[in-house]
């Protein structure tokens, strides 16, 4: 017996009082955002190793800029503690000032980034050898507490070992072996140090640096340099830290910028000892390297120590005869110098000038003979210099005035436009500087003689600069013409593509699609013969990336005729898909408006198809998801405006194309549903014959697409959703079909489903879905040929038969919810309707047979619920029983007509049952009772007063 309700008046009573909201600048969600902390962490001084570039300053975060300083918490904090804040600010400012003047900022490309590059580039397949004069491994375990004299003696012995020690020569090492061996040395250095065998550590370092004087297998030299200087760096750090730790007085360690006066005598003495020891190393190269490695320790001795040492070490390099060894020694000195005392520029310059002075040696007899012996060509030999010269020039050019750079240029010019130097100048100096003089550079490059340094490298370096900085407006076209003239003549495809890759960016940046097209055509022409593109995928890929970075207007992009042929060069599938992904990402990122341009659609469909076709059984879930997201993004961007038919046929085409990606199908179903609703909106709810047919076509599309999905809940929800859409469009029989399909699908719901890769019980999802479903069923009119409430009954039967979890009350909860539905169905006018669809209230008009049918159904359901409550009578389920009873009671209270005696009695029984075993929450019970009493004061609710009297409140005690 449902009570009759007047939904309109009820809703008016129940509606919340509308409060005029003050939408000022206040928004409840707004101040939650934390403001960006203002004191940016400054880069440590001398942090050449830090790779982070402080991009935060240049790129304004839109969030933080809008909300800057509105966070009440941070404001409060700032107000509460002004002293520390200002102090912090001061210190950062000071630090920054200092940074500007002396230390290396983050815009200085650190060595660590060069390191990997060099190791990757300079490799060899030839056999290497290591010559080590290591002392014989005696049992050197110094017993604890051994007398000082003994310690001294062992040290002296070790030193003797160094002199006479056994020569260990390792021959025929491959490059990998060699690198492993050096790594071992690095490790044994650390071990020796930590086990207090300082002499052994020093010995290892000396032996290592000795390897740098060996130039056999010359093409490996740059890599060898990198490996060995790593060891030297480790050593330098160890020594520095040890001496620093000796300066700890009263547990207060020295500040970062200590003065030599604050260093205690023991530390100074130890430090001096190191320097004396190193000064007595017989050979020049180890002596140089080891002293350079501990250059920083001069700080302990005197303020001017480093500034005195640097020039001395610089001139010491003059003693190194081999120009390659010497230039790397210079590079190391510059590196250490930049790290320890970046303000000392003079020695950097001096290093470079010294190098220029010795430059003629490269072409001297000694070097030439060596090259002949090793069978190394001059161009290859010259490229070995690049990393070192690049580094030296980079150190010099760092924050150097224009005048100095010009002077450097002049000096290089004097050496007859040497290509090697030119290349290094271009890669080390500021891009703006180079770009402004690019015509000069092209001229100089042309003048270089052919035999030496490879010219394509020069053009590549120039191109890299031009990509970073803009040349003067007038020269731009001429630069491109001149450069491309040379590039296009390159015979070797690898050389060519390396150059072209760089120049494409310049072209895209400054010119129109015509030039880009020409360049792409040229690339295709060069790369197609002999399938040269197969070896150049990374470069080709980067070309595509550059093109789409600059031309993101896709109608323009696809009107570049050679773009699609260019894509055809990617014939390896993985690369092809990568490229497609890039293009799609850029499309989704840059396209603001939906498109219907057939050129774009065709091209992008083709690209999406390529991506889709790459999916196979081995594709990872993430990969699939990503591809699907890209394709979905594309589908969402397609719109034919009012031409709905065309839109639908596009979706149909898309479905046939992307049938392997479920998320795409789901998206298509949603899109088609949206299309149907759009149509309805256009027709203002009154479908014409034509639109009705179209809408039916949409519905049919959904109906046949849904079964191909695998996820059961996706299917259920889509059935429901599409059914609702069909209903809204007055396609009653189609809607029925959807709902029937959903009903028949429910039994197949598994107990466990996988959510984000984890198995979860499905009942919560099912409960949610069923409630949703039931509320839809309220408005679905009965089918004329089927019985009353056919769908509801069907669903109830399915629920009845469904195997629920043994100890769950979900079934009863659903039944209780069904009661809500049934009570709503007995009303004269339903709470909601679908426009233009007659629901059961109009169909039956409150017919008594219909009501009786519903009542019968209610009784069955209630009987089921009561049965279930009975089974919960056991000790361990009493709490659940109490909860369910209360839930049921509330339902009756809300929806039932309590003037009916039977129902009234039932509710009293339930109330008692809920309290019977003391599991009821007293607060809830009191509140419920209060609610009943309040209701009783309303008109026509007087019977509630009686009810309230019949409901005893049990106290917990």
């Amino acid at each position, binding site marked *: 017996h449902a009570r009759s309700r007047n939904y309109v008046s009820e809703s008016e009573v129940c509606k919340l009082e509308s409060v005029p909201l003050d939408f000022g600048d206040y928004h409840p969600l707004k101040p939650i955002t934390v403001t960006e902390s203002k004191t940016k962490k400054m880069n440590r001084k001398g942090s050449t190793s830090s790779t982070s570039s402080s991009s935060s300053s240049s790129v304004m975060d839109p969030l933080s800029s809008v909300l800057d300083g509105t966070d009440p918490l941070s404001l409060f904090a700032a107000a509460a503690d002004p002293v520390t804040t200002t102090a912090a600010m001061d210190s950062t400012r000071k630090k920054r000032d200092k940074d500007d003047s002396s230390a290396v900022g983050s815009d200085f490309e650190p060595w660590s980034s060069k390191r990997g590059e060099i190791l990757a580039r300079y490799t060899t397949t030839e056999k290497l050898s290591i010559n080590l004069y290591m002392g014989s491994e005696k049992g050197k375990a110094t017993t604890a507490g051994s007398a000082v004299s003994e310690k001294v003696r062992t040290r002296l012995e070790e030193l003797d070992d160094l002199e006479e020690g056994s020569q260990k020569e390792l021959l025929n090492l491959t490059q990998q072996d060699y690198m492993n061996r050096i790594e071992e040395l690095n490790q044994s250095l650390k071990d020796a140090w930590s086990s207090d065998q300082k002499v052994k550590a020093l010995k290892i370092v000396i032996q290592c640096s000795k390897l740098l*004087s060996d130039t056999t297998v010359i093409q490996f030299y740059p890599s060898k340099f990198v490996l060995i200087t790593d060891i030297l760096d480790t050593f330098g750090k160890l020594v520095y830290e040890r001496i620093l730790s000796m300066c700890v007085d009263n547990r207060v360690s020295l500040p970062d910028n200590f003065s030599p006066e604050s260093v205690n005598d023991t530390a100074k003495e130890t430090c001096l000892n190191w*320097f*004396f020891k190193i*000064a*007595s*190393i*017989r*050979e*020049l*190269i180890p*002596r140089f390297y080891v002293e350079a490695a501990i250059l920083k320790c001069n700080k302990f001795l005197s303020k001017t120590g480093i500034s005195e040492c640097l020039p*001395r070490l610089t*001139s*010491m390099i*003059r*003693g*190194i*005869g*081999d120009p390659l*060894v010497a230039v790397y020694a210079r590079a190391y000195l510059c590196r250490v110098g930049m790290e320890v005392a970046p303000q000392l520029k003079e020695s950097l310059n001096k290093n470079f000038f*010294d190098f220029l*002075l*010795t430059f*003629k*040696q490269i072409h*001297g*007899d*000694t070097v030439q003979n060596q090259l002949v012996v090793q069978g190394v060509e001059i161009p290859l030999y010259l490229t070995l210099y690049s990393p070192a010269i690049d580094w030296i020039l980079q150190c010099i050019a760092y924050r150097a005035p224009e005048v100095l750079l010009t002077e450097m240029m002049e000096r290089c010019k004097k050496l007859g436009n040497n290509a090697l130097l030119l290349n290094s100048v271009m890669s080390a100096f500021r891009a703006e500087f180079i770009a402004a003089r690019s015509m000069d550079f092209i001229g100089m490059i042309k003048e270089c003689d052919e035999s030496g340094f490879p010219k394509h490298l020069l053009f590549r370096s120039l191109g890299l600069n031009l990509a970073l900085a803009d040349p003067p407006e007038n020269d731009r076209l001429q630069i491109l013409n001149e450069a491309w003239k040379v590039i296009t003549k390159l015979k070797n495809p690898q050389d060519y593509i390396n150059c072209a890759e760089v120049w494409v960016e310049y072209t895209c940046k400054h010119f129109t699609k015509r030039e880009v097209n020409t360049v792409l055509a040229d690339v295709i022409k060069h790369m197609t013969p002999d399938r040269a593109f197969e070896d150049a995928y990374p470069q080709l890929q980067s070309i595509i990336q550059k093109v789409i970075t600059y031309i993101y207007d896709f109608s323009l992009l696809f009107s570049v005729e050679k773009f699609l042929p260019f894509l055809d060069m990617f014939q390896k599938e993985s690369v092809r898909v990568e490229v497609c992904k890039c293009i799609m990402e850029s499309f989704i990122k840059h396209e603001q408006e939906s498109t219907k341009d057939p050129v774009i659609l065709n091209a992008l469909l083709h690209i999406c198809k390529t991506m889709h076709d790459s999916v196979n059984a081995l594709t990872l879930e993430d990969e699939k998801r990503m591809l699907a997201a890209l394709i979905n993004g594309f589908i969402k961007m397609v719109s034919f405006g009012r031409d709905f038919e065309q839109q639908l046929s596009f979706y149909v085409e898309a479905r046939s194309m992307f049938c392997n990606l479920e998320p795409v199908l789901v998206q298509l179903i949603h899109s088609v549903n949206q299309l149907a609703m759009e149509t309805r909106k256009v027709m203002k709810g009154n479908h014409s014959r034509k639109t009705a047919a179209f809408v039916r076509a949409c519905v049919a599309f959904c109906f046949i697409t849904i079964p191909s999905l695998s996820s059961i809940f996706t299917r259920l929800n889509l059935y429901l959703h599409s059914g609702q859409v069909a209903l809204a469009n007055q396609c009653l029989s189609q809607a029925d079909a959807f709902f029937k399909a959903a009903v028949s699908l429910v039994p197949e719901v598994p107990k466990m489903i996988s959510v984000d890769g984890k198995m979860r019980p499905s009942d919560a999802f099912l409960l949610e879905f069923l409630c949703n479903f039931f509320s839809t069923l309220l408005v679905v009119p009965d089918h004329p040929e089927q019985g009353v409430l056919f769908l509801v009954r069907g669903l109830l039967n399915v629920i009845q038969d469904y195997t629920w979890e043994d100890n769950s009350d979900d079934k009863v909860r659903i039944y209780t919810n069904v009661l809500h539905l049934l009570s709503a169905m007995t009303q004269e006018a339903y709470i909601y309707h679908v426009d233009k669809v007659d629901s059961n209230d109009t169909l039956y008009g409150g017919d008594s047979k219909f009501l009786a049918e519903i009542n019968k159904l209610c009784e069955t359901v209630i009987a089921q619920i009561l049965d279930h409550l009975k089974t919960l009578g056991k000790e361990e389920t009493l709490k659940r029983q109490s909860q369910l009873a209360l839930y049921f009671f509330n339902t009756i209270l809300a929806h039932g007509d309590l003037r009916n005696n039977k129902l009234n009695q039932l509710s009293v029984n339930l109330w008692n049952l809920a309290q019977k075993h003391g599991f009821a929450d007293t607060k809830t019970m009191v509140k419920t009772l209060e609610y009943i009493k309040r209701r009783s004061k309303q008109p026509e609710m007087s019977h509630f007063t009686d009810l309230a009297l019949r409901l005893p409140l049990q106290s917990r005690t």
Partner: protein
Amino acid sequence: EVLSGVVVITSKDTVQHQGISLTMEGSVNLQLSAKSVGVFEAFYNSVKPIQIINSTIEMVKPGKLPSGKTEIPFEFPLHVKGNKVLYETYHGVFVNIQYTLRCDMRRSLLAKDLTKTCEFIVHSLSQKGKLMPSPVDFTITPETLQNVKEVKVFFFILNLMLVSKNFIIPQPLTGELVVENAEAAVKSIELQLVRVETCGCAEGYARDATEIQNIQIADGDVCRGLPIPIYMVFPRLFTCPTLETTNFKVEFEVNIVVLLHDDHLITENFPLKLCRM
């Protein structure tokens, strides 16, 4: 100057003693090299040590010392015996100049006397005057060489410049070297620091040279015409100011050794004078 310090005595019980004294000794020990005078003579004819300084003071009169740690401070003026000079501490092969401090505790007949010896280092004060910076400029050409045994002589010119003949320790030896022109490739250029000890005695004198440090200043075929720095730190324990006395001498020399690619050797010797500032 005054030598000062403390004598520390630690004991469990009280100590009975017959007095504690301190003795300071300084002497020059000369040893003749077997090479210059023969093994036997070298063994027997060890020149008698020359005593420079010797003095004793009584610190504590006979008596008792309390148990635990007792510290007795002392100060010792360095007074030279007669007209002797206080030389700097020096440990060489044939010449040794050593200063020691000995503490004796005399005890009763039943117990042994206790002795503890300790060396202390003497650095002479700066030597005044006669410090003329006298740069050495030198050019080595085939003509300047003596002892040319090879028939074939390469054409080369080495320009050499030492900042001074007189050096002040602990400052390093500095200078410059230019390979102006050399037909043969240079393999290595080295700097050899040699110490010459001379002992004079009744039978004449013995002169012995020992290499104390060898440092490479150029490795490989260096660039022609570019000055290469000469830089050498004097090793601390093996150098002292140049000494010239009636009985013995300690002098230093530096050799510039140029090794050519075909193992030809060019050597040039320069005497040095070291002082202390």
